[in-house]
């Protein structure tokens, strides 16, 4: 059984006109960190639109503002200036509580470090997400999607790095988020394991239609994307559309 397509649900709810595929519209987003007396600019006017259902890869050197951008999109952080329009609403104006609600309803996060609860089993880690969601997947189903249904009762310490990351993905997807944000999800994994994890993410984007934003250091992963964004010095340097989306097996590492 396939989960229903998010786009269809959104259309049915009538929130978005079916014709507008833009889900995010970032305009001149700036973020500055105050470090004592010094102001460290992390984003210096990033402008970008994100289409519903696309797989977006963000590339760029270390310190170019990729994570900062992702955290702002995900509502973990608020920008110093600029607009972050999510379906026309400006996230930049959200309060802490509103951002919490926003994350709860719409966002799934996957980090380089898996951040699983060490004292909950794989399935319970997924339940963590489903219990706070209105229309969640069955936890078993989510684990099945990442091919871990046989490891449901294992604790994180009993799983390999790649498996833990897949549990983290299952946890992120289980509440059926509209956007899945992945910050270097394969950064801590070897090639083979990394491919398994990417495959899982790719499948989610293709089969459920979840919008997926993926930060990576690895330019070859860009082959999976619909569009590739290059960040440099806190702004979007270039956007390349990818006409020929590759599958994970075809990636040259």
């Amino acid at each position: 059984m396939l989960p229903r397509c998010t786009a269809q649900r959104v259309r049915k709810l009538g929130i978005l006109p079916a014709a507008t595929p833009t889900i995010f519209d970032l305009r001149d987003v700036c973020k500055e960190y105050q470090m004592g007396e010094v102001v460290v600019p992390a984003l210096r006017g990033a402008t970008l639109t994100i289409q519903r259902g696309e797989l977006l890869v963000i590339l760029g050197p270390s310190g170019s503002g990729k994570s900062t951008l992702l955290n702002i999109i995900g509502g973990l952080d608020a920008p110093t200036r600029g607009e972050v329009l999510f379906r026309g609403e400006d996230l930049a104006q959200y309060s802490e509580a509103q951002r919490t609600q926003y994350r709860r309803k719409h966002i799934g996060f996957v980090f380089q470090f898996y951040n699983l609860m060490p004292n909950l089993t794989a399935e319970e880690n997924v339940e963590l997400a489903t219990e706070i969601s209105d229309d969640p997947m069955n936890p078993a189903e989510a684990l099945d999607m990442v091919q871990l249904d046989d490891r449901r009762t294992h604790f994180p310490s009993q799983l390999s790095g790649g498996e833990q990351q897949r549990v983290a993905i299952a946890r992120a997807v289980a509440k059926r988020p509209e956007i899945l944000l992945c910050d270097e999800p394969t950064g801590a994994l070897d090639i083979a394991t990394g491919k398994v994890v990417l495959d899982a993410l790719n499948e989610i984007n293709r089969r459920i239609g979840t919008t997926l934003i993926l930060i990576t250091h690895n330019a070859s992963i860009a082959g999976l994307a619909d569009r590739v964004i290059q960040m440099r010095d806190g702004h979007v340097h270039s956007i390349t559309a990818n006409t020929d989306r590759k599958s994970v097996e075809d990636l040259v590492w």
Partner: protein
Amino acid sequence: MVVSAFHKKLFRTMFQSWGQSLGVVMVVLCGIAAYICFHSAYLNLSLTRDTYYAQNRLADFEIMVERAPETAVFKLERLPGVRQVRKRIVEDVNVDIEGVNEPRVGRLISMPARRSPVINDIVILSGRYFEAGEQRVAVVSNQFAESNGLALGDRFQISVDSKKYSLRVVGLAASPEYVYMIRNVQALIPSPERFGILWVPEEFAETALDMKSACNNIVGLVDNPEDLDKILDEADKVLDPYGVFAKTKREDQLSNRFISDEIKGLGVSAKIIPTLFLGIAALILLILLNRMVRTERTQIGLMKAFGYSNWAVGFHYIEYGLILCVIGCVGGFALGQWMAGGMMKLYVQFYQFPILESRIYLDVLARSMGITLVFATLGALSAAIQAARIQPAESMRAEAPSRVNRVWLEYIPVLWKRVSFTWKMILRNISRNRFRSAVNCFGVAISLSLLLMGFFMTDSIDFGMKFQFRDAQREDVKVSFQREQGRDVLYEASRFPHVRRAEGLLEYPFEIRSVWRKKDIVVIGIEKGSEMRKVMNFARETFSLGDGGLVLAESLAEELQVGPGDTVTLEPLMGRIEGEFEVPVRAVAQQFLGTAAYMDHAALSRMLDESYVINSALLRLESGSRDAINKTLKEIGGIAAVTFNDDAYQSIQDTLGKSMVITNTVLLIFAGVIAFSIIYNITAVSLSERQRELASLRVLGLSTQEVGGIVYFENMLMGALGLLFGVPMGMGICALLVEAYSNDMFRLPFYIDRSTYVISILLTYSFVLLANLAVRRKIQNLDLVEVLKERE
């Protein structure tokens, strides 16, 4: 002084986790303050007591007789082991002071005409001693004179038998015999305004009490106090013809008993309370520092890689403990010294010492610092050892994943499935950190116990007081006569204006024996169908006295090892009749005050070869007639004492009430500090350990409240468990207190009011809530992005 980088790190960590550091400091501070306070008071009081006794030659023994001639006293002095004796005339008399409505009780004590260093000497505080040839003069106990408006040169009247004498105050004094100014055990609390000592010239006492060349009280010193029992037995033989009715060793002397028990209690408190506190401080340090070593594993490895020795790194953590504890200890010095001063002020209300010093004892300070260092080292030791053991190379790798303990509930899948994830996390976290959870529980339990303990004392004494002065003793006033009286006097009393009812009471001293166990007691004869005296136990079961046989106070029955159905021997102590009586024990009843035995009045009269004899009258009055009856009683001779039931009740309530408020406040603060420090520290440690978990929950979209909930619920659960253990633990401590405080003078009822449980539990739980409130800020300030960026 150059502060090394190592120390800078130490101070910064201390400052960053200032809440936790403060917790350790506070617990140590309370413990040391308690130690200094109790131990100084212990030393102050012991020192004052011992010098006072020595300087004024407090007697080793006191023998009360009906009337002994001088020759008998000489014989006594020649007994082997007896160093010196002194004959006295002692009698309680009714004192009439102008301007004071109520009759007061004065104890007349004869003193030699010429000042000499006698046994049980007095200290003249103002005025002077008698001069040669003076007769109608008295040196009066200081507080009695002051609180009744008697100044030097003033006159007051005493009535002895039916004669009245007017005495002039020439001096005010204190005596080691009456440091605790109490007339008898029943009074429990000194009331120096109602009861005073009147030292009068021997010659006057002899005439007034018709004791020419005789005495009724002999005090003495012995060479070796260990021989006292033997000497008193010998003395008994010498004095037997003259009606010995009480032999008291110094250790049983009423005032001394109260002081020495108090001093002993201080000594025990000075050991237990600080140990408890420092033990808890060590536990907190243990948890705090173990966590710190785990957090700083990589840094420790790095330090070692630079060339720091294992010892240097390990000592770093011990130093952390030492610094916090020493700060607490020094704070404790100050607070303790201040509290010791306050304690001495409190003691001045109870004890009539001419001097009461509160000194600073350097050795006590040194010792408390020593104890602090030991406990600090103990608390930090395990962390130091762990730090010393860390291998530099290994520490750079990620720590081996922690083993997960499954909770027993998981083995019942039906139930486990129903547990929400919040509770799953809580239960697993508790089972992962069993030791820490146990300490958390323990802290709450201890806090609750401390509160229960404090309130229990109030409850118990209150219960005892109501028992004694409301239920067992129901007269409005007890009029004690100097001599035994017959039915006519009672009849007369019943016809006094405002007297609604009068009953007779006979209190007579006996030696009570069972096999070889014996004790001097008072047998109280209660009239049949008495409305004013009831023999009952704490459960208010009344015991009938029948036509004979004894009801024994529980402590007496325990001491004699007899129970209902056994037979005891009674031998009258006053010389009016000879012989022994075999009397059955009817029942045993718990008593709040004193060690008495109760008997039917008629049967007791018969035993004394009388048809009807009393030495007190119990009166029930019309309400509001107190002043009128006082006026009447002042006119009548032959009265030794007038005791209003309400006065006894009120004075105990007032005096104990005041000191109880202080004690309870201190205990409340102690309990709060313990509960707060333990819970706050453990929660903070557990938070820092789980930052990452909690941050990822926040990322998933849980609000601060929801994430906090996991932490709070865990604390609430452990708090509730702690309460569950705390109640029986507190009750156990109270039961121990009952044992520790009960003696043949009084027995604490084991009674804890229901409201006490409720209040203690609510207070303890509010400490738990308060600690959680403090932790909430930490959760709100959790920096999600920062935490998640860190490597696992």
